[in-house]
């Protein structure tokens, strides 16, 4: 089932599909399926012809309503994966292409999403591109990608206003893997209450303290700077320029930097974590 092929549009017309007047249940199920695509679940089952055609038309509307190249790309990749997985014979027959001998301009018409279908990895001779079975499959994916996103975004006037809500509903909410509250950062609190850290003060501020104070505890950069200066005054070692401390707090605010996880710091800077463990600051 290749709903993006030119012949599919004719079939949709014959089946009397009108994508601009649909009930909520249909829209809701299409929106759910679209959400799966945006979550990169490309192995969705093939549904009946009518639903596939209808969903394809709706998905293009949804992607256009969201108006981002990223969503077009995901949609294209979804159809590319399906074309690549299923037997491409029907596909090439419908397009009138003989995959074992494709004229060069025909081959070049489609963008190349699979690196294996780059021109120099296929046999080109006298203006004809020859493909083995495996590359024909990949090339089918290339064509599917190009055809399914061709012409996006659609004219906004062609998308019913109510459909925009269904499109927005499909967008998965990205949940940050790091906790948003102070919970899980108790070790940073214990660092803040510690005195006499001889080494690694700048790194501690950079990895943990400045982002924690500004973006987790919600202090203003000025407040964070005064907390940091107070903390520094309790540690050993030489003087750290106040401008550096201020810059770190401002940078954390401006870029919304979150504190590094303990595991991440342990993998990049094991010496620091070992020292803090040795001092009993970290468990």
């Amino acid at each position, binding site marked *: 089932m290749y709903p993006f092929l030119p012949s599919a549009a004719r079939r949709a017309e014959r089946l009397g599909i009108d994508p601009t007047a649909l009930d909520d249940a249909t829209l809701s199920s299409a929106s759910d399926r679209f959400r799966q695509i945006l979550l990169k679940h490309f192995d969705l089952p093939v549904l009946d012809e009518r639903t596939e055609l209808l969903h394809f038309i709706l998905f293009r509307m949804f992607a256009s309503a969201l108006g981002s190249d990223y969503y077009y790309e995901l949609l294209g990749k979804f159809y590319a994966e399906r074309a690549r997985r299923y037997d491409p014979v029907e596909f090439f027959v419908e397009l009138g292409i003989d995959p074992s001998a494709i*004229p*060069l*301009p025909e081959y*070049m*018409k489609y*963008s*190349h999403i699979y*690196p*294996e279908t*780059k*021109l*120099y*990895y*296929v*046999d*080109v*001779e*006298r*203006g*004809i591109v*020859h493909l083995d079975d495996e590359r024909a499959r990949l090339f089918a994916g290339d064509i599917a990608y190009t055809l399914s996103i061709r012409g996006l975004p659609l004219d906004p006037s062609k998308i019913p206003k109510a459909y925009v809500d269904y499109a927005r509903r499909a967008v998965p909410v990205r949940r940050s893997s790091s906790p948003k509250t102070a919970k899980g950062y108790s070790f940073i609190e214990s660092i803040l209450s510690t005195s006499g850290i001889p080494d690694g003060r700048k790194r501690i501020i950079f990895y943990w303290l400045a982002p924690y104070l500004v973006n987790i505890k919600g202090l203003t950069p000025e407040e964070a700077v005064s907390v940091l200066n107070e903390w520094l005054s309790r540690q050993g070692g030489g003087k750290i320029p106040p401008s550096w401390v201020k810059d770190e707090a401002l940078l954390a605010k401006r870029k919304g930097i979150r504190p590094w996880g303990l595991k991440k710091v342990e993998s990049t800077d094991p010496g620091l974590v070992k020292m803090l463990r040795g001092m009993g600051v970290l468990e």
Partner: protein
Amino acid sequence: MSEQIARILRDAFRRYYRSHDVPPPPALEQREFGVGDYGRKIVRRHMAFVSRREFRNYLREEAPLYISYSVGYFERPDATPMEAKGLLGADMIFEFDADELGLFSPNDVWVCPHCGAKGLVSELRGFKVGICPKCGDPAKVIMFPDPEREEKLKEEVDTLVKDFLMNDFGISSKEISINFSGNRGYHIHVRSPALRELDKEARIEIVEYVTGQNIDVRYFFDVSRVPPRGPKPTDPAWKGRIARNIIEIISRVSDASELVRMGVHPGVARRIARDRGQIVEMIENGVWPFIDTKGDDAFASLSALVKTLSPFMGKEIDTNTSVDIHRLIRVPDSIHGSTGLLAKSITNLKAFDPYRDAVALPERPYLSLHVDYAPEFEFAGETWGPFQDINVELPLHVSIFLLSKGVAHWRLTTRG
């Protein structure tokens, strides 16, 4: 002073255009034109001509110092902005420039804009071309005619046309025209309907194919078999090209160290040097015995070899020229305003000598020049120079050539 030189040039150009018929580019009425003046290659664009006669009259009357036309075909070539023109398609142009290919000759002159030092490339004695040996700043290299370099350039053009465009892409020789650029290189115009409608992405891919950019040799090998299988010399396109080139290098190198210098892993290089005959025979049958399927070293070695060997790899054709569908390019057989040489269309590449066959300007008037520095060079069938800090009177054609190189200054007197 520039205005006076421009006037002399315009007179000479007008005389040339009145006595020579410059054929307009194919599909004249669908092309945009742009013209330039002394020191500026484009001062006016979005021009169009509706007939051959109008085009010819414009050249005869206005005698522009530069005239360029669009590689694109447009519905309304004189419309602005670009989007209003209605793009119908575009030719594909490949541009070779001697300096971009790094083809420097011992006879070239380097000049340091920073400390003012200058000299011949042949006197650099181990210093890199393009770096001032006195102060280490980037130095400008001024190219003078060199038959050896011309041969190399023509060889590059010939390989591109025959090996890639005709053999791989199946473009007919009738759809390809080769032009001297009028300065330091060649333009290859491909006017094939097959390529005309290709978009920028597709053109980028064709350029990548020709230059072999980012090629990953792994794709050509089947390492699931022992010994690994790979391309044969008889295979088409890049597969065959890689096999043929590698066989050539394996047969040519004197010992393993030469291969190591090309980036081949020392262990692999030793093995290749030891079993050379046997390895060549196996590659001819598509068997690549020296690829270590366990590690990446052999592929790294192969990548290094491919980079060293490919006729275009590591060398630059001007990518922008090939992919830009809105580009203006010199009209074939018009005069290049910087050098006074014709952007000549070439029928017999082998016999073509740009500094003899593309000289368009006459000898008269003679210009009185102060030449800072120029080696001995051949131009218009005669030998000139060497010059160093000297006042000389030279014919117009060679004077303009030296002025364009920035090694001479006009002294405001002319002899008719």
